């Protein structure tokens, strides 16, 4: 009893194998196999036509997909670059300047559209204040940005804040230009939502 079951199982196994081999044979180019294998060659003709159709369909689909992908990528880049855009601050201040407000307004628009996107707001300072005070100042800057975004009805849980004080300058120099560059908030996406990572 057990041995016959085993035998039939063996038959079934080979059958399944053959079927899958045929099915898989559709995708590769229908060139005659270098080694003559009589049995599969009989079905090659039928497979050829089906494969051709499938190939064309696949190509069209892939083209559409590529286009969609490109569009999505462009949109994704647009959104990410808007999110990544830094805002800058005046010396020893955490007020949102008019130029920073413009930048943040652009963020509000895309954040409303992409509700699944979350990010971390990083506050930074120039090197002039004390190392320790700058940690507090950077935090205040990050919080000011967060409050601004939340005031436009965006969910507060989408934003986390961290301060790096003067520890991560964007520009390593000791002049007005570098200081202005370094007094900033940066944005680091933590959840991409419908943007896909």
């Amino acid at each position, binding site marked *: 009893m057990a041995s016959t079951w085993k035998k039939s199982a063996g038959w079934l196994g080979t059958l399944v194998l053959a079927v899958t081999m045929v099915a898989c044979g559709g995708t590769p180019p229908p060139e005659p196999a270098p080694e003559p294998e009589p049995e599969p060659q009989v079905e090659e003709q039928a497979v050829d036509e089906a494969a051709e159709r499938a190939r064309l369909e696949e190509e069209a689909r892939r083209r559409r997909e590529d286009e969609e992908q490109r569009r999505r990528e462009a949109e994704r880049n647009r959104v990410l670059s808007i999110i990544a855009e830094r805002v800058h601050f005046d010396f*020893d201040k955490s007020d949102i300047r008019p130029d920073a407000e413009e930048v943040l307004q652009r963020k509000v628009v895309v954040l409303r559209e992409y509700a699944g996107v979350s990010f971390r707001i990083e506050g930074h300072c120039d090197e*002039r*204040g*004390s*190392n*320790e*005070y700058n*940690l*507090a*100042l950077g*935090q*205040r800057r990050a*919080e*000011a940005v*967060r*409050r601004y975004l939340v005031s436009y009805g965006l969910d507060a849980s989408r934003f986390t*804040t*961290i*301060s*790096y*004080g003067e*520890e991560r300058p964007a520009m390593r120099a000791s002049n007005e230009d570098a200081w202005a560059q370094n007094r900033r908030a940066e944005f680091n996406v933590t959840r991409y939502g419908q943007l896909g990572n």
Partner: protein
Amino acid sequence: MASTVVLILFDSPNMSPTNGQMHYGARNPLTAIAMPAIVLAFLGPATAAAQVPVRDSIPTDVRVGILYQPSFRPGIVMPLVPAPQGLREVADSARRIILRDLDYSDRLQVMPVGEDVPIEGPINYGLWDELEAVWLLVGAVEGTPDQPVLRLSLHDVVFRLLQEVRAFELPPLAHPGFRHALHTAADAVVRWATSSAGIATTRIAYVAEGPGGSEIYVVDSDGFGARRLSSDSSIALSPAWSPTGDRIAFMSYKNGDPAIYEIDADGGRSVLSVDLPGMDLTPTYTPDGTRLGFAATIDGRTEVYTYDLVRNCCPERATFARYANSLSPTFAPDGRRFAFNSDRLGQLHVFVQGMNNGSAELITPYIYDRSVHNAGPDWSPTGDRIAFHGWVGGEPQIFTVAPDGRGLRQLTQRGRNEDPSWAPDGRHIIFASTRDGATGLWVLDVVSGRIRRLVSAAGARLPDWSGRLDSASQLTSGAAVGSESNNR
């Protein structure tokens, strides 16, 4: 002792005196020179400080200067004593280390002495008196290279008597505790001669750039044995010694959310100490070591908290200022008050507050100027002064002030000078400075004005001076053999 310090003022060379706000009345160099003489002639040192309108301002267009009254430093000689074969190297090292420590104490004047001066036989007090030495230190090394013994005898040359004698058992030359044992001996000599303890058995923790970010480092008081303690490859800041000197608290970003960690003073892994929601920063121990003072962000601002280290719980808020930041606490030696940094007046200032009393008192001068920035307070272990850095013409300089806001003194002039920390003797201050072009840590003797560089390393900053590390456990916790490089 004539350790008087007098404030003098003189015009900044690049400033017009006409538009200057002159708070101190000294308009030209002549009066500036004449002033201390007058003050010295008619007023005692205590009233001299009171004459200055101290709470007025840190003028931005006037340089506040300091005149260090060269106080009398008794001369000390330590002649070369012939050592037995096999102990010569030990004797040489011992003498070098002790002489440097005596010099760095700034309480004694180390006098050079020729190698040919005979030391055998009875002490020739007349000879040393002629050299104008007040103290004669004779150090004889005995025993074996494995167990050397240093016998120090201190002679009072003026009164021609033996003041003290004591034998110090030393570890072998290559042992990590060798230098520490000699620092202990040097501190004993300073105490015998001046009845004030030295600072040789202390270390300084600081921040410098490591291979993967800023890390915590430690160096001996004489600049030797600099070594990295943390290896978090992250951002480590604000080291603070525990009162017993066995641990250092610091702030680190190593787990993303900035929190307070503690690390053994002889290295190893740092362990999480305090992690409230948000950022935790600027730790400091209470003088009894039972609690940690620190700052933490709450609702986007920063407030000072304490944390119970014994029960490992119970953060308690100590400052209450809506819409402002309070940070960098530092405790008075009795632990009843603390100074801290706050921008509650729209400028950064130092305040003092009682531990059980919510009212904070401003101790740094308020002036209507955007460039006011007083930060990094450190309460002296002797209790009488608080050091901090304040901006003068946009550059931070080291100041000290009494805890009631009187007697403001500026101690530095050149380069950027930041984040002062007191030595346990209450007269030496270490701070970060760019005075020689690069960043480094410098030690200033507030009494004599002597200044020396201790560490020059990339990004060396935020120094914290330990208490005296005399306990036996500290003996073995020195630098690993071979890593003892002079860092200067």
